[in-house]
């Protein structure tokens, strides 16, 4: 693109700027996303509105196109990296401005597995949807999950695995939760490339989530159910 075709983000009105940020997110342009976020902050947008209307809105399109086979993993990673840039600016401001919190999630990749791309995408999209996320990282033994659940008191436990050889460990964690009588205290969501719905049911998870967008929708749905059951109790 020649210089004269360059779009000056600060010259766009709010609606045009958000539309441009959707495009920039789609194209994985981190610096442009950071600039867009800063411009909206200067225009006194609430951090929560920037997050939901500009970043999550754009990332939702990326998620849909990934699901539909229009985008592939590299493009999603670039988009996620761009969103991460915007989130880094917004995160401290969200805490200061008391943005609504939908729930809390502890998430981690299971023991023996070092793959975290899917987990990181889920964590980021959950944060974007208003969840507080405690990320345990990779290669987590059952003790690490139990300690984090006790210390953090999350609503949701998320477990991820990429390998056929490591995904059975999710059942070890859930069985231990059952043994300790705490299974029903948490919503348990599982995901990862070799998993499927049947596997999720077989190991006693509440739901299998195919991708990050589904994880967010499923988490919201289960939080709604939890809220309703607490009201009727």
């Amino acid at each position, binding site marked *: 693109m020649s210089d004269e075709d360059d779009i000056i983000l600060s010259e766009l009105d709010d609606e045009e700027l958000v539309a441009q940020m959707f495009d920039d997110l789609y194209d994985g342009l981190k610096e442009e996303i950071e600039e867009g976020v800063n411009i909206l902050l200067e225009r006194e947008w609430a951090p929560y509105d920037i997050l939901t209307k500009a970043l999550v809105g754009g990332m939702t399109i990326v998620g849909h196109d990934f699901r539909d086979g229009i985008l*592939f993993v*590299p493009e999603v*990673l670039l988009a996620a*990296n761009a969103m991460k840039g915007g989130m880094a600016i917004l995160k401290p401001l969200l805490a200061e401005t008391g943005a609504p919190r939908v729930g809390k999630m502890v998430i981690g990749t299971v023991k023996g*597995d*070092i793959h975290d791309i899917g987990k990181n995408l889920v964590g980021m999209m959950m944060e974007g949807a208003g969840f507080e996320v405690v990320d345990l990282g990779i290669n987590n033994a059952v003790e690490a999950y139990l300690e984090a659940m006790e210390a953090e008191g999350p609503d949701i436990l998320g477990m991820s695995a990429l390998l*056929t050889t490591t995904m059975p460990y999710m059942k070890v964690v859930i069985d231990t939760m059952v043994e300790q009588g705490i299974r029903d205290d948490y919503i348990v969501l599982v995901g990862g490339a*070799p*998993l*499927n719905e049947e596997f999720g049911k077989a190991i006693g998870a509440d739901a299998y989530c195919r991708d990050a967008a589904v994880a967010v929708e499923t988490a919201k749905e289960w939080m709604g159910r939890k809220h309703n059951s607490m009201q009727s109790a």
Partner: protein
Amino acid sequence: MTLSDTALTEDGLPLKTRQGRILLIACGALAREILDLKRLNGWDHLDLTCLPAKYHLYPDKITDAVRAAVAKHRATYDDIFVVYADCGTGGQLQTACAELGVKMIAGPHCYSFFEGNGRFAAHDDEITAFYLTDFLVRQFDAFIMKPMGLDRHPELRDMYFGNYEKLVYQAQTKDDDLLEKAKACAAKLNLTFEYRFTGYGDLANALKTL
């Protein structure tokens, strides 16, 4: 016969006319190794057809493709043997083979059966190892660099490989050119390099029983 790695990746290996009584339905990534074993051992009772090796990138395609291949050929052969390990199908290929009444090679993936499933399972210190076979070294660009977008976006490397520490080249054959290429692959991924000659491992053991 001249085999093209690109053709094995994209199209697999079509079945020639029936000569043996048992059909091997295999991943295209195993074609050269199986043909070598057939030639070395005189296993003329085994015929071979391969599905595109690129299914390695989309494991959800493997089970249906194997089902279709078994259905297509089962009337023509006394028996069929599936030369896929689980290969990321999460047990679905095993279930399908059991339903179809055909056997498959044991193991989670080819990295495991090339080394020997028992020996591979005993590595409890290798969760940060990334494995390449002869085929994957030759097809490194087609299986790693291009589909992961690293040819266009090298900055993604650490998002994919940041948690890995070493690249283990499991060599099926002794080939100096492949060894050098494997070292270059490790350098591209910023991983330390380890050479491990496996030969054909449990692939040979499994085919020997047929």
